[in-house]
C-alpha cells in the first residue's frame, strides 16, 4: 500500500502542473512527480544544487560524475539545460522565479505552517534548501502520506519546529486534497478508496467541507 499510495499522490500532484512551469521537487515522494508530467506539457525542473532543465535519473553506467541533483543522485540534463552556482540558484528560488515547489512534511497545520526538517532529539538532518524554497516559491504543495504510524500529520497546530510559517497552499495525501485558505483548511477532493469519514478520522485539524466536494 505504501508504494501505491505514494504513486497516487505523485500522480495527483502532477495534475497541478501547468505548461511553462519551473518546478523544484523535494527529495523522496515529491521527486516522483517527475514521472507523471503530462505528455506534451513543457515543465522545467530546477534542482537547487545548480540545474535548470534536470532530466531523468541515470541508470547504472550512464552517470556523469559531475552531474548530480540536490538529493545526491546522478541525473541526466535536458537539451537547453543550464548549470549555475548556489548563490544564483537561491537567487532564483528566493526571488520568486520558481512557479511551484513540491515538498514532503512531518506536519502541516490549519495556518499553512509546515514542519519538515527536524524532530528534536531524534532526526536532525538540517533544512537544506527547504526554508528558502518555502520562502520564495510562488506556490507550495505538500505531498505526503496522510498519517505517520497512524498519527495525523495534518494538525491544528504544528508541535514540531516550523520550517516555514503560513507558506503551504495545497496538501495532497493518499486520502485527500486539501487547500489552505484564509478561512482554514478546505477539503477539496476525496482520493479514490477514501471517504469523508476516513479523512476526518485521520485528520486532527478542522476541515471545511463545502457543497460540491469532488469524490
Amino acid at each position: 500500500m505504501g508504494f501505491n499510495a505514494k504513486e497516487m499522490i505523485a500522480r495527483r500532484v502532477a495534475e497541478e502542473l501547468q505548461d511553462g512551469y519551473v518546478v523544484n521537487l523535494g527529495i523522496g515522494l515529491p521527486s516522483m512527480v517527475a514521472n507523471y508530467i503530462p505528455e506534451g506539457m513543457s515543465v522545467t525542473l530546477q534542482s537547487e544544487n545548480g540545474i535548470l532543465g534536470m532530466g531523468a535519473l541515470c541508470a547504472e553506467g550512464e552517470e556523469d560524475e559531475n552531474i548530480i541533483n540536490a538529493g545526491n543522485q546522478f541525473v541526466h540534463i535536458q537539451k537547453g539545460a543550464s548549470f549555475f552556482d548556489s548563490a544564483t540558484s537561491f537567487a532564483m528560488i528566493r526571488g520568486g522565479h520558481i512557479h511551484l515547489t513540491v515538498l514532503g512534511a512531518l506536519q502541516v497545520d490549519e495556518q499553512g505552517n509546515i514542519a519538515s526538517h527536524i524532530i528534536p532529539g531524534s532526526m536532525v538532518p538540517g533544512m537544506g534548501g527547504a526554508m528558502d524554497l518555502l520562502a520564495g516559491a510562488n506556490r507550495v504543495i505538500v505531498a505526503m502520506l496522510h498519517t505517520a504510524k497512524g498519527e495525523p500529520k495534518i494538525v491544528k497546530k504544528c508541535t514540531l519546529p516550523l520550517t516555514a510559517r503560513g507558506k503551504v497552499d495545497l496538501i495532497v495525501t493518499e486520502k485527500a486534497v486539501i487547500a489552505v485558505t484564509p478561512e482554514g483548511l478546505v477539503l477539496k477532493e476525496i482520493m479514490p478508496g477514501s471517504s469523508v469519514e476516513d479523512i476526518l478520522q485521520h485528520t486532527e485539524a478542522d476541515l471545511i467541507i463545502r457543497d460540491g466536494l469532488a469524490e
Partner: protein
Amino acid sequence: MNKVIGINEAVKMIKSGCTIMISGFMAVKSPEALIDLMIKNNIKNLTVIANDSAVPGKGIGKLITHRCVKKLIASHIGLNPETGRQMNAGELEVELIPQGTLAERIRCGGAGLGGFLTPTGIGTSVEEGKQKLTVNGAEYLLEFPLRADVAIIKGSVVDTLGNVFYKGTTQNFSLVMAMAADLVIVEAEEIVQPGELKAEYVMTPGIFVDYIVGAEM
C-alpha cells in the same frame, strides 16, 4: 604568476584550529586529495563551513570520521549518520543554516558587504537572536557575512593563473567560497596554460585563487 605548487606544500599552510570552507555537494567533487593529506598530517580542531557533511568515507565525511572537525556549519547533515551521532554525543558542534542563506552569507563575506536581509527562516527557530527588519511591509532577517581562513575547492579545468572552470553541477559553493577566504587552494582535475580557458568561460577569476595543486599526490 604560476600558482601551481606541490600538494605537500599547500597542506602545510592549513593549520589545526583554523576555519575552512570546503567545496562540494553531498558526495560529489570535494577536494579529496587535499582532504586525505589533511587527515594524514593530523590537522585537527577545524571549523568546517560547507553545504553538508557528505557521506561516510567521502569528502568531508572523512574529516568527520577522523574527528578532525570541532564545529560544522552546514545546511544538511542527513546523509552522514556519523555526523548526527557525534553531534548527539556532544562531540561535534553543528550549526545548521538554510542553504540559500549559507550561500549568500559566504558571498557577502567575499563581496565586502556587511550583511543582507532575507525572508528565509522568518517564523522559525532560525530567527533566534537575529534582528528583524520590515521593508515594504515584509519581514526580513538580518544575516551577517561568513569568512574563513582557508578555502579548499575542487576545479575541473584550472589555468596556472588560477582561473577555474567547473563542469556540471560542481560549481555549487565553489564560486562564493573562493571569494570569502584569506587563503584559497584549488585542487585541479586538469591544469592548463593561460589562454586555454576562454575568458568568457572562466567561472572563478584567478584573482580569487592563491594556489593550485594537482589532484594526484
